[in-house]
């Protein structure tokens, strides 16, 4: 007999439905899977057989053929175990025919007949919903992930036996209740806070500005100055994620298999720190399965590059496209996928290879040429996309021990949210959300300067030897400072302050 069960496959963040056709026929006992299945799918044979037997059902001693249609696209992963098992049971009339028809079924089986967690459920549900499916059977372990999507009925089970009982009508089961999303629900979603950062008033201010205007930031400072801690604190002062943002992030994390099943949805903004030996495919996404890379995992959050000049040139240059477009295209022989990659870049570097240049207490051992080579590893076009470059101070023992408690993340976040609200109002309907994304035309309109400001900007450029390309950066940052200040126009004090956040333009390392 033949049974046809609906399941789902993913390609990037989108998916398509897969018909799992199971044919059980007379012949020598065998089990064959066709339809471009990968090894994990082919190995389902053993799991399906053991799970059916251990759930006290009959496993047919016949020839079993499984076809995954459409037959020309690749299927991978273990999520077809459950639909195949249901198909086998249906084909041998252990489940009433058509009882399973309205459901999209996914799940991995364990040998004892239990159901296990699968990767990528959130994107599967969202994509299937768009294709008109409304009923789903999923493993219990994925229930939380599913509970945030309203408008569909998701039934979660922990055993194959329960699925069969449900389909045969022996047992009534309620769909998973829908939760309402609240980003604030987890109080301690970050385990750091800005109040732990001692001293560093200058750098803290720069961080606040960067987050308020969506600017990328580079910290320059000696080892042990607290650059990493400050970078980790950045997500804590970013506005809470909206539901849409959280779903986008969850989809990506679900596909990558790093989603915390206990949480179900990502509420904390991601903070990703790829090591400096990271390869281009690991950063941008790739591999045989075209998986999302670090830039996509950092979507709606922070990508932190510690010791930026240590990264390979090629790796750094590849960042330019996602920084510009907010998406990354991963092309592989069989497929080409788009992943979102809208992140805030936070980078850090030492002032010189030994780290002591400019220090009051330590002698720098680097030659001028070494320092130049070190700094020049960051190309102009890349630096062009980093609006703020600030120096971070080496912290002294006294500061570490006796510094007065500093402002908490919550206080800073309030100011950031206010400034963001101003920007949302200003750029309404233009596809731009923050000052950092301003187009040239918008800059003309929103960064108009009074003659006095023009004069001081010009003086700053002459006096501080700044390069020409710094001007747009300074203006954008000045705009953000004005927004934080609650001022409609950019005033001279905003410009003079913005100038201080352009360390690398000043040819310090001459």
């Amino acid at each position, binding site marked *: 007999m033949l049974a046809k069960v609906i399941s789902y496959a993913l390609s990037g963040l989108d998916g398509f439905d897969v018909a799992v056709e199971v044919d059980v026929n007379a012949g020598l006992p065998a089990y064959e899977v066709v339809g471009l299945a990968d090894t994990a799918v082919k190995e389902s044979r053993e799991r399906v057989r053991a799970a059916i037997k251990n759930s006290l059902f009959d496993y047919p001693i016949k020839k079993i053929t499984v076809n995954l249609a459409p037959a020309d696209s690749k299927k991978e992963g273990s999520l077809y175990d459950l639909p195949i098992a249901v198909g086998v049971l249906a084909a041998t009339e252990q489940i009433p025919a058509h009882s399973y028809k309205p459901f999209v079924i996914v799940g991995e089986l364990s040998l004892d007949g239990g159901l296990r967690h699968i990767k990528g459920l959130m994107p599967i549900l969202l994509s299937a919903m768009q294709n008109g499916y409304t009923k789903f059977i999923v493993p219990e372990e994925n229930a939380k992930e599913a509970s945030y999507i309203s408008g569909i009925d998701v039934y979660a089970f922990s055993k194959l036996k329960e699925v069969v009982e449900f389909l045969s009508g022996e047992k009534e089961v309620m769909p998973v209740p829908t939760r309402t999303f609240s980003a604030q629900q987890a109080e301690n979603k970050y385990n750091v806070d800005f109040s732990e950062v001692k001293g560093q*008033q200058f750098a803290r201010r720069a961080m606040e500005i960067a987050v308020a205007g969506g600017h990328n930031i580079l910290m320059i400072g000696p080892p042990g100055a607290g650059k990493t801690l400050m970078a980790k604190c950045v997500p804590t002062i970013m506005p809470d994620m909206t539901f849409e943002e959280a779903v986008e992030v969850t989809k990506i994390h679900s596909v990558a298999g790093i989603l915390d099943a206990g949480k179900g949805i990502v509420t904390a903004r991601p903070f990703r720190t790829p090591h400096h030996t990271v390869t281009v495919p690991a950063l941008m996404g790739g591999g045989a399965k075209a998986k999302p890379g670090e830039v996509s995992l950092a979507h709606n959050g922070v990508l932190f590059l510690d010791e930026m000049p240590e990264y390979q040139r090629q790796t750094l240059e590849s960042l330019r496209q996602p920084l510009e477009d907010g998406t990354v295209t991963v092309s592989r022989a069989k497929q080409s996928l788009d992943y979102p990659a809208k992140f805030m870049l936070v980078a850090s570097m030492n002032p010189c290879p030994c780290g002591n240049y400019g220090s009051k207490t330590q002698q720098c051992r680097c030659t001028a040429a070494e320092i130049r080579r070190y700094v020049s590893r960051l190309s102009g076009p890349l630096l062009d996309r980093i609006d703020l470059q600030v120096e971070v*101070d080496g912290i002294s023992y006294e500061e570490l021990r006796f510094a007065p408690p500093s402002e908490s993340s919550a206080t800073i976040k309030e100011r950031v949210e206010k400034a963001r609200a101003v920007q949302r109002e200003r750029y309404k309907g233009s596809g731009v959300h923050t000052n950092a994304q301003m187009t040239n035309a918008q800059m003309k309109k929103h960064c108009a300067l009074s003659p006095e400001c023009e004069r*001081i900007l010009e003086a700053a450029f002459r006096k501080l030897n700044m390069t020409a390309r710094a001007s747009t950066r300074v203006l954008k940052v000045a705009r953000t400072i004005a927004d934080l200040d609650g001022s409609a126009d950019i005033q001279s004090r905003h410009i003079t302050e913005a100038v201080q956040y352009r360390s690398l333009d000043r040819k310090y390392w001459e």
Partner: protein
Amino acid sequence: MNYSDDDKALIMLSYESSYPRKRDALDSADSPKELYRDYSHADVTIEEMNRKGIVAITLNSKYYPSCLKNIYDPPQVLYCKGDVSLLSDTVKRLAIVGTRRITRYGKDVTREFARAFSDAGCCVVSGMARGVDSEAHKTVLAENGKTIAVLGSGTDVIYPPENAELYEEIASKGLIVSEYPPGTPPHAFRFPERNRIISGLSEGVLVTEAGAGSGSMITADLAIEQGKDLYVVPGNIFSQASKGCNDKIKELQAAAVTCPEDIIKVGKAHGDRENLAVQLTLEQARIISFLEDCESMHFSELLAKSGLGVNELTALLSEMEIYGFINKLSGNYYAIAQKL
């Protein structure tokens, strides 16, 4: 420029690799012509030099500076590019040399003295190396003064490479000099040799900042040997970068100088602080008063003392920097601009 056969012989000899060994022979020969007979290549070489705008001044030439002639082992040929009149005996020349790894202090000192020398109409001689040398040349050029760079490579070889712009500027407004024929690559052993020309061309040598064993200490020793005036600027006793200078003072080999007036009569007054004080706002004056007490002060300390907000202080410091009252040093330190 027309070259005599003697000149041509000297030029061609300087191209030969055995040139240093032939020097003794040159001294004992009646005329260089005895050592060099084949002139077939000389015209091509001179043609090439003319094309590059390089002029050769030999020991016999009337343009050869007499102060250089009197040192031990004067160069037989000087390859020059630029304003040759700077070699004239009527020009007052002073050398400024020092470490290649310059500190903030060294920079300030070098600028201060180079500016004063240049304002007083002196020609500043240096070696176009990194650090103090470059700083001295740049300052003089910015003041529209005259400067001579003595190279340790061929006159047309730019070393260090990042000084390409500076090289062009000196060649057009000042003078580039070398005893090595065009095309000679920079080798370490040539730099100490060239130092004798720096001190030889100058009335006195000023070392603004130099560590112990620095190449500029060689220049200092040569200045003493050649009977020139040696001036050094004292530094912080804990600073390795000033150890060479401080040692010279300790050994009583050099005159310690603390202002340009110690060496020359300064013609122009250099802006004075009293005038500026009038233009400062109250807050700016407060910042200046904090900074006056110390070499430099950190942002966080200024923040604590001034009682201003981070954004207010940042804006204020930035403004003061733009107007040239203070300098921002690396590591978020601020100091009063030496120019004041």
